[in-house]
C-alpha cells in the first residue's frame, strides 16, 4: 500500500454562479488497502467549507467506499496495473462524484435488488442497492465502468 495518496484540487472560475465550485480529482491504484484513505481524503474535500450534517458525511463515506470497492474488486479485479479515477465536482448545492475503473463495465439494470427474504442470507450483492438508496441520483456511462453519484447538500 502506498504511504499516501496524492489528491489534486482545482478551484474553477465562476462564469455562472450556480456552476461555481471546486474540482477534486484523485487517482488510486487497484488495492483495497487504499480505499479507507481515499474515502477520507475525498470526503474531507467535498465537505470543506460547508456545514455538513453527520448523515451527509456518513452517506458520502459509505457510497465512496462502495463505488471504490466495486471499481477495484469487480471492475479492475485488483489488477495492480490498472487505476481508479475519482472526479468530484463540488457546487454550492450539490456534490457530484464520478468513479471510473479500467474494467469492461457491467449492466447496472441486470443487478437484482438484494432485499427479498430468500436473499437476506447472501453475503454479497448489496453495494449498488445501498448507493441508490443513499444518494439523490445515480448514473452510469454507456460502457458501465463509470458511476456518477449526486448528493444534494442539506
Amino acid at each position: 500500500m502506498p504511504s499516501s495518496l496524492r489528491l489534486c484540487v482545482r478551484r474553477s472560475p465562476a462564469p455562472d454562479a450556480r456552476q461555481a465550485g471546486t474540482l477534486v480529482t484523485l487517482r488510486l491504484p487497484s488495492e483495497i488497502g487504499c480505499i479507507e484513505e481515499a474515502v477520507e481524503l475525498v470526503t474531507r474535500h467535498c465537505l470543506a467549507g460547508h456545514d455538513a450534517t453527520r448523515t451527509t458525511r456518513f452517506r458520502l463515506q459509505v457510497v465512496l467506499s462502495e463505488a471504490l470497492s466495486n471499481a477495484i474488486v469487480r471492475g479492475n479485479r485488483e489488477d495492480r496495473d490498472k487505476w481508479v479515477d475519482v472526479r468530484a465536482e463540488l457546487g454550492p448545492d450539490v456534490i457530484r462524484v464520478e468513479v471510473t475503473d479500467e474494467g469492461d463495465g457491467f449492466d447496472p439494470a441486470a443487478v437484482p435488488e438484494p432485499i427479498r427474504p430468500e436473499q437476506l442470507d447472501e453475503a454479497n450483492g448489496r453495494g449498488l442497492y445501498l448507493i441508490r438508496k443513499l444518494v439523490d441520483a445515480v448514473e452510469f456511462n454507456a460502457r458501465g465502468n463509470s458511476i456518477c453519484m449526486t448528493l444534494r447538500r442539506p
Partner: protein
Amino acid sequence: MGFHETKNASGVTVVQVEGQLIVGNRQELKELIQAAVERGERRILIDFSRTGYIDSSGLGALVSISKRIREAGGELRLSGLNEDLRSLFELTKLDTLFAIADTPQQALASF
C-alpha cells in the same frame, strides 16, 4: 481501525469494531469470530459504539458471521448502532436478520 476482543464476567465474547468495517478489514473480523467459535465461544456480541461507517462488504461479513455462529449453535447480538449505521440495516432489511440492541449493556442482558 481494528477490532478489540474481550470476555465479560458472564462469559460473553465482546468484539468492538473501532473505525470502519469495510472490504479492507472484513476478513480480519471473520477470522477473529471463526477463531472464537472454534475455541468454543457460543455467545458473541459485536459492538459498533465506536464505528464510523460500514459498507456492503462489512454487512456481508456480518451475514456470514451470523450464519457461522448459528451453525455452531451459538447466538450473536449487535449493539451500539447509531442512527446512520442502523439505517444501513433497515434499508437492506438486515435488521430482520440480526438481534440488535441499543447498547452493549442491553445486548448482554438479553443473552
